[in-house]
């Protein structure tokens, strides 16, 4: 059933977007590429750090229900914080710059990585582990040769989620002087109504979506290359 009152969209004067958008990108290809690169770079760095910390946390805690629930609660807490608020808090502590941005992104990336590492490691078949022990593999040997390789698809899935999340949040980081395509969005915002405002916002937004998709594609290729055929879904 349709209600009698339909929301009527206001008349929108369509900006000459289609024609001028590509011109705009062409004219500003230098800064588009530079900021896109900055975006990629800050995301990659943060994810890199988060993987090291997150997998380590998972590995250290997955055997103990208490320790893992603490690790999950704490990393979950960071994900609960509004990104703007967390950035603000870090800013107050560390001042403007790349450092608070990277720290914030790392904190956001933790939960999916930690939780998937724990899940992945716990899902390793007990029979397989027992037989690895029976073969005389040391605990470290088992972790490196058996548990982590078998948990890897799950860990990688967490990594993909974390990357998607962080690519988006990095946009806000631009507001506190972080590198990245968010600059276009905020610059468009400050010139709202100006000639190129919409173009700038579109460049920033679209660029970030593209970066997210490229990262995802890349990680799926990494999965193809690194997940053993014996356990691929």
């Amino acid at each position, binding site marked *: 059933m349709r209600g009698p009152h339909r929301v009527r969209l206001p008349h929108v004067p369509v900006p000459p977007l289609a024609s001028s958008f590509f011109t705009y990108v062409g004219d500003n290809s230098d800064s588009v590429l530079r900021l896109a690169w900055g975006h990629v770079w800050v995301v990659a760095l943060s994810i890199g750090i988060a993987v090291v910390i997150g997998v380590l946390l998972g590995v250290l805690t997955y055997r103990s229900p208490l320790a893992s629930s603490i690790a999950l609660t704490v990393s979950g807490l960071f994900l609960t914080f509004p990104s703007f608020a967390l950035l*603000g808090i870090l800013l*107050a502590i560390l001042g403007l710059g790349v450092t608070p941005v990277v720290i914030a992104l790392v904190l956001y990336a933790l939960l999916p990585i930690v939780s998937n590492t724990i899940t992945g490691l716990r899902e390793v078949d007990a029979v397989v582990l027992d037989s690895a022990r029976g073969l005389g593999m040391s605990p470290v040997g088992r972790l490196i040769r058996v548990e982590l390789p078998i948990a890897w698809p799950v860990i990688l899935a967490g990594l993909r989620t974390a990357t998607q999340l962080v690519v988006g949040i990095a*946009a806000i980081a631009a507001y506190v002087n972080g590198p990245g395509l968010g600059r276009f969005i905020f610059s468009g915002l400050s010139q709202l109504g100006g000639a190129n405002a919409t173009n700038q916002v579109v460049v920033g937004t679209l660029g970030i979506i593209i970066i997210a998709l490229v990262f995802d594609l890349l990680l799926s290729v990494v999965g193809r290359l690194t997940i053993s055929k014996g356990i691929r879904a």
Partner: protein
Amino acid sequence: MTRTLLRLLATPAAIVVALVVLYWQVGEQTNSIAVSALAGPDATSAHAFSSNVITKIGEHLKLVGISAVFVLAIGVPLGIVLTRTRSRLISIPINGLFNAGQAAPVIGVLVLLVSIFDIKSWVPYVGLVLYAVLPVMRNTVEGIRNVDPGLIDAARGQGFSRRQVLTRVELPLAVPIILSGIRTSLVLLVGTATLATFINAGGLGDIINDGIKNQRDAVLLTGAVLAAALAVTIDWIAGIAERYLSPKGLRGERTA
């Protein structure tokens, strides 16, 4: 039992501690000029500061609350509709939209909306709902798809109509997963609402932004800690609701 209780109370305790620390830190500076920047030109007192903070919290809650209603009203039915269609013609583009939607930066979407529609009172809601509807929709789909086909078969075998199967079997069983999607959405809404400040829609983001612009850490921290505390509180309440609204037989099962 005591352990669950402890866990239940740990979160509010932590929030209270955070707020007390904040008050103690910021309280000392409430009379300084730091506050005037925030509280407006005609108010310089601590009282004005705190009343302004309360206004901002109110605005924030309004943004979250109204959006949440729309998210529910749109997300769940849309999710149900998606599971009714067998056609991949529909599900593939929808999945693509899911993925692209997740990848889209909220701030970009918000600014894009105002750059197209100008600053209007409904614009922030559209942005918030667009963004927060995804987890609810996705979890509705997933929750219904997760229902054991054997159960559906059994229900059909007993003579349930399709609609009865949906309302008496599929939906009740999907409730835990749907609730967890709603919880995710609520947290997202609180977070996204802090960005409303950029399109002049108020909320706690205003305080954070003021703090950043005027380089007043006390103000910045006030906004940030309050926003964080609000998010954690809502997550906590939603967590409790999630536990008690799930059908009894399903409680205690982990929901992702």
